[in-house]
């Protein structure tokens, strides 16, 4: 006989909401302003409000040399122009959001900030979905890079990435100056996630403009740590810890570089990559991610159908 278990929670906290993107009416140029987060429970754990259905972001970049050949070979020449790529992603792959990496800044001695600004502007022109922009990863150029991105996207309510413990001031400053939100990434640890959020709060970034990236290892490559960290972050938030009550973003990008994909039979490499990315992303959704990011275009359709079928009509509630 099946046993019915009543889950009685004493949770009092709620996950905060973050808005990404601004429509024309709101002073931007996006087709929608997306709200992520919310909810006062866990997804797929009956009896509580799990929040909104998770969204899918597609990741692309402005310097394809630093991207997985599995993706660039599939996408073709379009990867050499960020605007063209953005347009193609929207039209063909149809994710919920775009996540644009300024990989051009990762070259040694990068200084071409005017080109950077034009690139961001072009991506904004050629796309309509709410946009996440990933800037530099070098403290020496962070300040100018994020200023550039922030300014070019003023009014668009971008989500800017990525703030880390050692370098969060530049991205926070750009977000505050131009009305954007910030991705706060910490290395798979609930306490470090909280510490970074406190630092951002003290720099002046309000809670409703922070999205937590707990860092996602690929499935089989430490994902269980990510899962546990995400779960603990969510638990802490539901128990009332406001410094952890933000929606989470998860990117399974390591999936394309793992041994199983690298060493797969060339004919099956793409399929293997999609599978790995898909399973990692679905696991992240179950752990509580509000936005999951993928790089392989063919991951999007099965991922969406997985989320839809898991979520059901009640938003995963019952």
């Amino acid at each position: 006989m099946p046993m019915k278990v009543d889950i009685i929670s004493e949770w009092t906290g709620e996950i905060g909401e973050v808005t990404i993107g601004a429509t024309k009416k709101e002073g931007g140029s996006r087709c929608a302003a997306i709200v992520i987060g919310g909810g006062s429970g866990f997804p797929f754990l009956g009896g509580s409000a799990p929040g909104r259905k998770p969204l899918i972001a597609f990741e692309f970049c402005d310097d394809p040399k630093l991207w997985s050949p599995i993706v660039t070979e599939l996408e073709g020449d379009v990867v050499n122009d960020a605007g063209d790529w953005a347009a193609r992603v929207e039209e063909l792959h149809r994710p919920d959001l775009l996540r644009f990496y300024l990989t051009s800044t990762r070259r040694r001695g990068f200084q071409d900030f005017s080109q950077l600004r034009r690139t961001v502007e072009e991506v904004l022109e050629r796309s309509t979905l709410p946009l996440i922009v990933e800037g530099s990863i070098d403290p020496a150029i962070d300040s100018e890079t994020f200023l550039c991105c922030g300014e070019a996207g003023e009014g668009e309510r971008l989500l800017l990435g990525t703030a880390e413990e050692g370098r969060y001031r530049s991205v926070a400053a750009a977000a505050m100056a131009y009305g954007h939100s910030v991705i706060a990434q910490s290395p798979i640890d609930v306490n470090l996630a909280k510490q970074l959020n406190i630092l951002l709060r003290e720099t002046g970034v309000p809670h409703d403009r922070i999205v937590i990236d707990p860092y996602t290892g690929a499935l089989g490559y430490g994902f269980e740590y990510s899962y546990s960290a995400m779960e603990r972050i969510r638990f802490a938030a539901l128990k009332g810890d406001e410094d952890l009550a933000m929606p989470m973003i998860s990117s399974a990008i390591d999936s394309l570089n793992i041994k199983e994909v690298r060493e797969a039979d060339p004919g099956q490499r793409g399929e293997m990559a999609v599978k790995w990315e898909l399973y990692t992303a679905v696991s992240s959704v179950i752990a509580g991610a509000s936005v999951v990011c993928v790089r392989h275009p063919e991951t999007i359709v099965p991922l969406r159908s997985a989320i839809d079928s898991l979520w059901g009509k009640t938003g995963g509630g019952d």
Partner: protein
Amino acid sequence: MPAVTFLPGFRKISVEPGSTILDAAQKAQIHMNVVCGGEGKCGKCIVFLKSGRVDFDRKKFGRFFSPGEIDEGACLACQTVPLDDVQVFVPENSLIQEQKILIDARGIETEFNPAVWKYALELAPPSLEDPSPDLTRLLWGIEKSGGPRENKIYVPLEVIRRIPAVLRESGWKITGTVTLVPGGYRLIDVEKGDTSGNLYGAAVDLGTTTIVVYIRSLIDGEVVGVASNYNKQISCGEDILSRVNYARKGGLSHLQSLAAESINDALTSAANNAGIDLDDIYEVVVAGNTIMTHILMGINPAYMIEEPYVPVVKRYLTSSASRAGIAVKEDAGLFIFPAVSDYIGGDIIADVLASGMTESEEVSLLIDIGTNFEVVLGNSDWMFSCSGAAGPALEGGEVLFGMRANPGAIEEVSLDMETLVPEYRTINQIKPKGICGSGLIDLLAELLRACIIDRTGRINTSISHERVRTGRYYPEFVVAWKHDTGIEKDIVVTENDIKNLIMSKASILAACITLMNQAGIRREDISNIYFSGAFGNYINKENAIIIGLIPEVPPEKIKNIGNGAIEGANIALLNRKKRKVLDEIARTMAYIELNAEPSFMDEYTRSTFLPHTDLAQFPMVEELLESCRIRRD
């Protein structure tokens, strides 16, 4: 064999080929600063090569030197092998220096129940009518003077051999000395005439770094002499693990004799000051950490640092001082404090005894910060303890301008919140040479207050101020300008230093919280926080709370018990009944192995924030820092 000449003293010593300059220094009795035990990790044993050829990897160790120092031939003594005869200059900073050692035990209140007595006797000479043997005659005399029963006193053969001559040469006027031993009494000496006024005992704190001795009259308990000294074992490695490693490599007997020598030197200077003879010291009580007491007793400490970390003995030990090489009265008693575990040794039990925390139902937290840290939580009914490595940062290691509490160390700092100009005080009020632990804690708290660092200790380099700058490797804050210092360099604290300090403080706070969680104690339940050890005496209590070195409690609950080890040793010397209490403390205290405690790492990460990730645990600090932020904005 290559010969090494040490400048400025021109001491010359020959060494085996392949030996390092540090080996030579040890042979020449030049005590160099080797925090890491000679592994090339601390960069404190800098010497300058003046002539000759050496084998030294300047590329590998270059980070320890300034460009000017490299030009002058800087090497690390522990990593430099002379290839032929060499001359090296040893700068003052590379030598162990006179340190601020805590010697004042608070006025001790304990019953006076010593374990040694002298009996001045005038015995009737034997006759045909009274032919009882010399020894019986003597022991009866003791019994008649109020001493122990004749048949309870054991007499060693060496004493018996002396008896006939002493009795007869003194005209049957003698003084016998009896000491309490397990299971009875022991006659340890017979002297001519009345020497009953010359009865002294010594309390010894045998620390990893320093040794403190007290000489007390065992007739009235008064202190007659005090002295302190470095533990000479430092030349074999500064921290405790390097000592154990030294012992493992066949150095146990060398370490043992260095420990005895260090105690003897301190005893000699205390006795000279008091104008007494070392031969009038009849009992020695030693409190030390488990490894130090093992070494002093010549017991191999090696197994304590390997899994499963067991000491050879935990119970208290009694022996004769001479067997440990302590140069007091031949056959004088030696009492060694018991231990709880490898890391909770007699020094901590002495701290607990001295704090009085076992005598009250109030819950107290006792923290001993030294080369390692130990934490004890409990009251008269229960007690938890743990220990860990705090890293050397709080003692000045792994900090660019860190130093021990030697003359010239900045021991107190405050910042002007407007101008960011530091005001500091150095030990002996001379020009600063570096910063010691208490100064570093002040600095951390002040930099946080001034919003120069964030809660992870990162320096906000966007602050435009001449003292906030980026150094060769890390951002840094200038504490003292070159022209104000005694070392002709700017004294700075770098972001890396701050990171090391935060790791140190985090392990201490995490240990406190782990014990509190184990016992189900909240910070509000804590009635006293006792600091023991040299460190606790000099730190600013509020700043220790601001940086989250200890849980937040009202500052008036924080007390320094000073050198608890020497105090506990003094109590045990004066009041033998407390020796039973020691044994009880050792038996009831539970030891929590932090490495085996899964929540500890989590708590550690939470504690690597200033003051702590859970800000609700530090409400007063939060209020203070909030007002600092508002003022800055």
